[in-house]
């Protein structure tokens, strides 16, 4: 009993001491707060990213993830240097290069109150999310959707890259200038592939060539059978070149199988921007094939831009990877988004949309001048020519060897001997 009483007394004493100590500390902290002005809390803005970290564009998607990191870092340093007390944060979700998942991602961004979304990569995905972002006033910036069918004015979809109407012209000029007169256009049977093939066909016809379109189903595990059909088509039509309009994994797969075919190794190959930057293309199978058929591709690129060279070197230094296709367009998309949010002054879709158009007029980055045309696409888009040449740590590497200028291709160096 006495023990119990003592224990209770001890507890009470401890409580009193604790109370006194608590008061003292609280008073000290409170006192400090009144004398020193606390810096106002940093305002945090989130930018949503729906990127192809898996699926048919995963090869380049993995590189883009690093581009986003670099761009957000740069943006934060830049705005802080201008004295803004804000921080931009990237919320990255994977959309598997699939339409429905891109939409789910955008919807979950919307639930989190995010008003600016960068991505998705593929035109078919942009098409699916378009009506949702329009009705919910979310500014969507795709760094890589190029289908001319999505060049629609007065919507919430912006593209920091020119539409393929331009690139199809460059690719047609490249093929024609290299001596191709009758080509089989082997293309993805989707939004991107179909539109690109149609534009290519009309430009190539205008130049006096013939283009035979051969679509293939996307999302297959392997394309050996499609490539065999392509070979017999090339043979039966007597075509002198193949124009391939593909993404990463399908493009690499097709080129690897084509390398096994004598018929396909004896005609020229011209490739769209899709497979550029995919590491699978640097395997010895594809590398040797590229030299044999003198493979050239086109891609949106403002060649010899010092900002691009700087960006490229920093990517290599920081992450050990070369920025593949659309990396610079993605970088600029992030910068534009950040400055547009600040210019808008309020985190509201409509205001950011209006600010974005203004910001883009005066911004110049690794992808060049970012001004938008009336449809919200990059108005000033230049195109470069790329090749796969021996060299680099992987045995083969991508090299930008020429550019498209007023209807013709100018080679800056010889890619293949």
């Amino acid at each position, binding site marked *: 009993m006495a023990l119990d009483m003592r224990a209770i007394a001890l507890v009470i004493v401890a409580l009193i001491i604790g109370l006194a100590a608590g008061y003292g500390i609280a008073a000290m902290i409170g006192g400090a707060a009144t004398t020193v002005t606390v810096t106002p809390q940093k305002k945090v803005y989130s930018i949503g990213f729906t990127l192809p970290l*898996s*699926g048919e564009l*995963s*090869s380049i998607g993995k590189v883009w993830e690093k581009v986003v990191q670099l761009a957000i870092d740069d943006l934060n340093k830049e705005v802080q240097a201008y004295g803004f007390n804000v921080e931009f944060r990237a919320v990255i979700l994977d959309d598997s290069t699939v339409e429905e998942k891109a939409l789910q991602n955008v919807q979950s961004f919307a639930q989190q109150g995010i008003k600016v979304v960068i991505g998705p990569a593929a035109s078919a995905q942009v098409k699916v999310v378009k009506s949702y972002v329009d009705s919910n006033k979310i500014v969507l910036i795709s760094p890589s959707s190029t289908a001319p069918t999505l060049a629609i004015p007065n919507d919430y979809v912006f593209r920091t890259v020119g539409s393929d109407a331009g690139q199809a012209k460059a690719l047609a000029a490249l093929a024609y200038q290299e001596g191709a007169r009758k080509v089989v256009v082997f293309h993805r049977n989707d939004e991107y592939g179909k539109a690109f093939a149609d534009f290519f066909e009309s430009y190539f016809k205008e130049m006096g060539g013939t283009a035979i379109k051969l679509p293939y*189903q996307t999302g297959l595990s392997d394309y*050996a059978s499609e490539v065999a059909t392509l070979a017999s088509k090339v043979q039966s039509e007597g075509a002198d070149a193949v124009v391939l309009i593909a993404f990463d*994994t399908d493009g690499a797969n097709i080129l*690897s199988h084509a390398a096994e075919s004598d018929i396909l190794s004896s005609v020229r190959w011209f490739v769209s921007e899709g497979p550029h930057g995919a590491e*699978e293309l*640097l395997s010895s199978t594809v590398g040797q094939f590229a030299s044999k058929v003198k493979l050239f591709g086109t891609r949106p690129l403002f060649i010899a831009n010092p900002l691009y060279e700087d960006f490229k070197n920093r990517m290599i230094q920081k992450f050990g990877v070369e920025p593949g296709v659309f990396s610079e367009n993605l970088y600029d998309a992030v910068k534009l988004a950040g400055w547009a949010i600040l210019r808008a002054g309020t985190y509201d879709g409509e205001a950011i949309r209006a600010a974005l158009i203004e910001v883009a007029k005066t911004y110049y980055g690794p992808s060049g001048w970012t001004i938008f045309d009336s449809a919200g696409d990059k108005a000033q888009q230049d195109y470069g020519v790329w090749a796969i040449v021996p060299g680099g740590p992987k045995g083969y590497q991508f090299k930008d060897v020429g550019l498209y200028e007023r209807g013709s291709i100018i080679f800056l160096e010889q890619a293949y001997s």
Partner: protein
Amino acid sequence: MQQAVMNAFQYSLFYLIFSLPLTLSYRTTKVINFAHANFITYGAYVAILLHGILGSNLMSLAVIVAFLLTGSIAVINNMLVFTPLQKRGSSPAIVMISSMGLWIAYKYLLYMITDIANYYTTKNFVSYGRITYSDVPRGSVGGIDFSQALVASLVAASLTVVLLYILLEKTKIGRAMRAVADNPSLAEISGIPRALIINLTWFICGGIVGVGGVIWTSFSGAITPEAGDSMILQVFTVGFIGGLVSLLRTGIGAVLIAAIENVGIAVLNAFFGIPVSFRPFLTFATLITTLIAFPPLGAGGGLPYRFLRRGSKK
């Protein structure tokens, strides 16, 4: 057209390696296993990680590691998921759905592994180019080009067929496997260690498919963590043609589907102008036709049809 025929041959071999174990595992364990796709992909990734991280160009090494790994995965799936579910009296449909869950989980686990590997090597493992092996011959005989994939899959498919035949027909274990397949309860009563036989079946089936996955890396030009996924439905189609019971008919199914997918579409394209993008349709039209022609096979499980046939004769 010659290329199409060669492709058909090559694909028959792949489908054989992928589908025979599917049929064997179903008829012994009665599980329609969608995680079968993971065996293909994990087998391929054993080869890719050995190549990308350790710089190994040896297919033989990859084959051994892959067999052990995918075989073990199959046993683990059975011990941790399928058997407990079956013991609690789950219907075959529930077990099948659990295998779908495993399929998705393993896929994303592999994405995580590729990310970690990418972090340490800065190489891209999410999509990997074709691997050229140093221990597999290639060459051309009589104008026919024998690629590494063709040589390897020819050897692997022949070995699979011969060894499975010897195992099932000539050995005690094989007889026990067949007994469990025919009547699990009776087999158990007559003293066959059923659980052990089922685990052994899973190990062999998972292992064989993993080997096929390794060979796939010498064929395909871009391997992703979803390589097995887009193939699994074809593999099931081949299995369904064999009624998921008959190994012989599974073999016929492999040749049939490979021929339709390669020669069939080439002929249709050349003579009737049918677009190549039509190819997946042909495969699944064949699947539906097979299912309608042999109705007891409905994917919900049920008994293998030969038991029903026997029963219906009464």
